[in-house]
């Protein structure tokens, strides 16, 4: 059967809401085999040349980044534009940017899972992968931004001859734990969800190598329902843990600023504001990646237009939240009557960094408004461009917060103006290289869609009980029965 060609006469738009029947999540097909073949096909088909080209490009960019880092380590962080007063520049901006991106994955997997949003199944694997890669990129920057990278391990509580310990009052140390935990948990979540699908790849293996690799990775999964039973429970628990985690991580990241005394940083609104922003940017990045991928690998029937429309709606919502945060900041700056605070915000909007501020506002608040219109929500090109603009805007949000606040704090004599160097820019560009390298490897060698989960929400799996069929239904209603193994 043909998984590789899409029947163009077939129905591809499932965005119309028909109250009489729930909108299908997989189009034109009812047999499970179709899902297996389509998704595994991505991995099993011979590698297209275009993949090699893209991979080479990404690899090149990664090389650039590591070249920059080598130069940085051998020469000193003076090669960056940072100075006094602006002691944090691109490195921290990029860190916050990437961590923010990293939030969509866990959010889609965990929160939508708890909210029983079935449509998540086609994109969660994808988003989780993206999370891991974003966090990897984010993780690089705190490491290299310190003046003496070779003693960066002092940030961890390692017993040593000095009998010195890190200072747990410092938000940076909270960061270490938050980001560390987040990376670990996201990885667990991602891998665990993948085990059954890896088993599928194992069982479809035609070469010894593939069989061995996927065999080991799938840990000998044999689809036993007694295993599924605990698997579901573990998955539910991980989701329940990851949800507060994902909220806490960006809150902690925002503490780096909120706990300081710098006007423009010292704000109680930061945690919710940062989390909303993170979700916002995360979804934007998913859209940016999903649209080309689904087109390229012909996944239109599994990652349907409805999925994309839903994501547009979420971007619209989070975009408005971020916009609200911006205006609240201004209101409070004025309302608090704190002279330093109000100057900082006037300065943001009309000072030397006004250009950055208005780029941010345009991309993050104005652009998403187009998603009020359904035509825009269902127009892939528009959606794709908008998502990229939102990514740009969110990067600038971090730039404005970090740089413009620092550049003019309390004593006018030590005001300054930060200019990035070419090293700054290339390092940032290079981190995208790393991101795409990992992403390309992922789409090439791993199941980019959770087959077992998609199958679970297909009509054939629901044995005529509409409204049921998602994992936790039975977890919740199950009561102890006699007999059986434990």
């Amino acid at each position, binding site marked *: 059967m043909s998984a590789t060609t899409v029947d163009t006469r077939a129905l591809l738009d499932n965005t119309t809401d028909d109250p009489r029947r729930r909108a299908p999540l997989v189009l034109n097909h009812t047999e499970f085999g179709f899902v297996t073949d389509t998704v595994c096909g991505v991995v099993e088909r011979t590698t297209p040349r275009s993949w090699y080209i893209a991979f080479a490009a990404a690899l090149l960019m990664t090389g650039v980044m590591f070249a920059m880092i080598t130069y940085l380590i051998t020469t000193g962080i003076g090669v960056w534009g940072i100075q006094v007063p602006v002691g944090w520049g691109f490195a921290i901006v990029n860190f916050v940017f990437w961590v923010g991106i990293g939030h969509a994955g866990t959010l889609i997997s965990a929160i939508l899972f708890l909210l029983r949003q079935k449509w998540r199944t086609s994109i969660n694997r994808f988003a989780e992968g993206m999370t891991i890669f974003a966090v990897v990129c984010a993780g690089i920057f705190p490491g290299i931004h310190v003046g003496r990278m070779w003693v960066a391990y002092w940030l961890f509580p390692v017993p040593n001859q000095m009998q*010195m310990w890190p200072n747990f009052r410092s938000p940076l140390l909270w960061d270490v734990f938050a980001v560390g935990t987040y990376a670990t948990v996201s990885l667990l979540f991602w891998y665990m969800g993948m085990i059954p699908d890896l088993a599928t790849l194992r069982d479809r293996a*035609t070469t010894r190598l593939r069989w061995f690799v996927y065999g080991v990775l799938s840990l000998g999964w044999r689809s036993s329902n007694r295993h599924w039973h605990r698997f579901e429970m573990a998955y539910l628990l991980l989701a329940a843990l990851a949800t507060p985690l994902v909220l806490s991580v960006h809150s902690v990241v925002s503490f780096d600023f909120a706990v300081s005394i710098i006007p423009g940083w010292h704000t109680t609104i930061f945690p919710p504001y940062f989390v909303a922003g993170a979700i916002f940017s995360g979804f934007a990045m998913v859209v940016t990646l999903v649209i080309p991928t689904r087109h390229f690998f012909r996944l239109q029937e599994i990652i349907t237009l409805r999925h994309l429309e839903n994501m547009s709606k979420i971007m619209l919502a989070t975009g408005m939240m971020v916009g609200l945060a911006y205006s609240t900041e201004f209101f409070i700056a004025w309302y608090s009557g704190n002279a330093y605070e109000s100057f900082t915000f006037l300065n943001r909007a009309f000072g030397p960094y006004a250009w950055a501020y208005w780029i941010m506002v345009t991309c993050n608040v104005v652009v998403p408004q187009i998603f009020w219109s359904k035509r825009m929500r269902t127009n892939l090109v528009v959606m794709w461009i908008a998502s990229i603009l939102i990514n740009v805007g969110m990067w600038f949000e971090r730039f404005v917060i970090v740089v413009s606040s620092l550049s003019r704090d309390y004593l006018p004599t030590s005001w300054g103006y930060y200019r990035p160097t070419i090293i700054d820019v290339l390092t940032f560009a290079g981190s995208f290289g790393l991101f795409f390298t990992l992403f390309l490897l992922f789409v090439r060698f791993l199941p980019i869609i959770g087959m077992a989960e998609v199958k679970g929400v297909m009509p054939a799996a629901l044995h005529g009980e509409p409204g049921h069929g998602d994992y936790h239904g039975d977890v919740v209603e199950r009561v102890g029965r006699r007999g059986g193994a434990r």
Partner: protein
Amino acid sequence: MARDRSDNIFVFPRWTWVLRPGFAAAVAGGLLYAGLIVWLGFSPKTTDVGYAPEQPVPYSHALHVGQLGIDCRYCHNTVEQAAHAAVPPTQTCMNCHATVRKESEKLIPVRASYASGLPVGWIRVHDLPDYVYFDHSAHVRRGIGCVSCHGRIDSMDVVYQFAPLSMGWCLDCHRNPERHLRPVEFVFQLDWVPEEDQLVLGRRLREAGGINPPVDCNTCHR
């Protein structure tokens, strides 16, 4: 049939079930081993203690201090006034060796230095990092004996590093000096032992002298 993509079946051999506990054991053991290597291998106790370089002149503290009973301060005469317990000038050696062992082979560098005025290049044994500021006077004037840090110099033919001289080691004493405090008159007496319990004595001396060693960073780092 259509769904079956390959005729050959791959199966893992039965013995692989052993891997599970084996793997777990390997991971745990490996981590423990690595930890121990780092902890023990890089500790100053391992790297520094016992460092005994060969000196240009085979000067024996065992002979001069142990047997002849020369006081530490005869040579290291700045120890009570200054941060450095200065290594003596050649002159000091010659005070005796102008008459004693005039012809000795071993003393050739000393005599040469005395004649030319060029220094004898001794090798530093107790070498703290440049960012550490240790003051001998502050310690000996408060009743910390030489022996506490340098060991029984009077029995060393070749001086070696007795203590790790690590920050943790310094802190231990700065936090509980009573373990080492002694009456100032016995500071330079290497073989002195208290009649009473050291801790009792130490606490009394600490009380009396109002000795509260600071543990602030800039006590040693400036």
